[in-house]
């Protein structure tokens, strides 16, 4: 029996009269790697921010790991949800070690445990702890910063990670490396759920166990990547898949 970790039922979100999300229903199971694909304005980031309560739904119910969001202590809940953003969001005035230790310190861990965790996590994201932990974010490259961002999200060993276009500001080679690494990481860390928002269709299909395609605040299709490619459910999805084929044709012309 698989456990549900995220459950949206009849969720909608309005800014004034502008409806961003309309009647969203989906569930994510524990241990899944779900990617959310959509263009800007599709509501994918808003959906992600509703998972940790940064945005509140106008109506509907959200359950995360048995907690009903409008009834639970958000501060406490957020300490057990890893969060990674596109702009990395490492605090520039803190060292790498301090950045990773933010949530452990909030939880009152002792110093020894924090030091050990920082070393382990930097090792996990392939950065040499001795070399990097006392540096400041400004001294690291974009790819290294995003590795630290990932390490920070894992600091309290949360069951759920939400990632908002974490790799889209990086150049192609580093992005591909990190994609491979995060996929390997997800397999290595058992029973961790990743909710990964992206606008890159290749990234979405490559990483996701299931891919949620969003457009204008609605889910167009939410299925396994191979099924989406084989049976696109709507015109929008067909168009998306067609862009990939188009690109492929371009490459073949160059050969």
């Amino acid at each position, binding site marked *: 029996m698989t456990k549900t970790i995220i459950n949206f039922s009849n969720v909608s979100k309005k800014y004034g009269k502008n409806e961003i999300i309309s009647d969203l229903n989906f569930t994510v199971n524990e241990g899944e790697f779900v990617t959310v694909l959509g263009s800007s304005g599709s509501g994918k980031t808003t959906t992600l*921010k509703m998972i*940790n309560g*940064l945005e509140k739904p106008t109506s509907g119910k959200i359950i995360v790991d048995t907690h009903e969001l409008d009834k639970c202590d958000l*501060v*406490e809940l*957020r*300490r*057990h*949800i890893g*969060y990674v*953003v596109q*702009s990395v*969001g*490492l*605090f*520039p*005035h803190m060292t790498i070690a301090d950045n990773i230790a*933010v*949530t452990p310190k*909030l*939880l009152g861990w002792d110093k020894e445990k924090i030091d050990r965790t920082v070393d382990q996590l930097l090792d996990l994201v392939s950065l040499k702890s001795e070399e990097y932990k006392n540096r*400041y*974010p*400004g*001294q690291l490259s974009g790819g290294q910063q995003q590795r630290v961002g990932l390490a*920070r999200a894992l600091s309290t060993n949360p069951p759920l990670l939400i990632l908002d276009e974490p790799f889209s500001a990086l150049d192609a080679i580093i992005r591909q490396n990190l994609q491979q690494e995060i996929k390997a990481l997800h397999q290595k860390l058992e029973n961790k759920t990743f909710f990964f928002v992206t606008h890159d269709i290749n990234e979405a299909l490559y990483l996701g166990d299931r891919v949620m395609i969003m457009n204008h605040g609605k889910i167009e299709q939410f299925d396994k990547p191979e099924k989406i490619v084989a049976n696109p459910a709507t015109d929008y999805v067909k168009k998306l898949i067609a862009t990939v084929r188009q690109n492929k044709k371009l490459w073949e012309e160059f050969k």
Partner: protein
Amino acid sequence: MLSEIIKYFQTSSGEYFTYLEQHLWLSFSALIISMIIALPIGYLGSRNKFVAAFCQTFSQLLRIIPSLALLFILIPFIGTGFIPALISLVVLALPPLIVNTILGFNEVPQTFSEVGLSLGMNQFQLLKQISFPLALPYILNGIKLALVEIIASATLATYIGAGGLGTLIFTGLGLYKMQYVVIGAVSVALLSLISMWLMDFLIRKAEKHDKNNY
């Protein structure tokens, strides 16, 4: 002239240091009090548009009033001496402090607040660990402007009986003893300069690591 200045320090250095001490005491009390008032207001102003608009209007209004006028305006109500001088200096220092505090908090990128909240900080922890340290260079800049303004205006406070280095200047002018004027004026200028350097040093220190990420 130089010999007269040296003679003054030989005979009345005690008097000089009393004036200096009065001047510093008045200036720093005014700075501390205005900071206690301005920093919370500035923080509120960064979170509430109504407070911000009110502060902007208040600051612009205060800039029109010359510091001398502000010093005199209190005399009918609370007389002369240290307290009225202190009050007017505090009022003078508020605008640069409030405006720069609001600016500082507003300049903290939204992402950092969101990430801070997402990592499980409550509002107070967010302020203490993220917003305040990142806003600090701007706040220090406000403190610098306020301090320079206070030190200069404290010279005029002599007029309402608060003592300080202004006493030397006005005594010198009255008795036509230019060495007094020079000693007083140069001391005030030096105080301003030193406090500016000191604040600039602190600002550089505070923003050392911030640069690359903005």
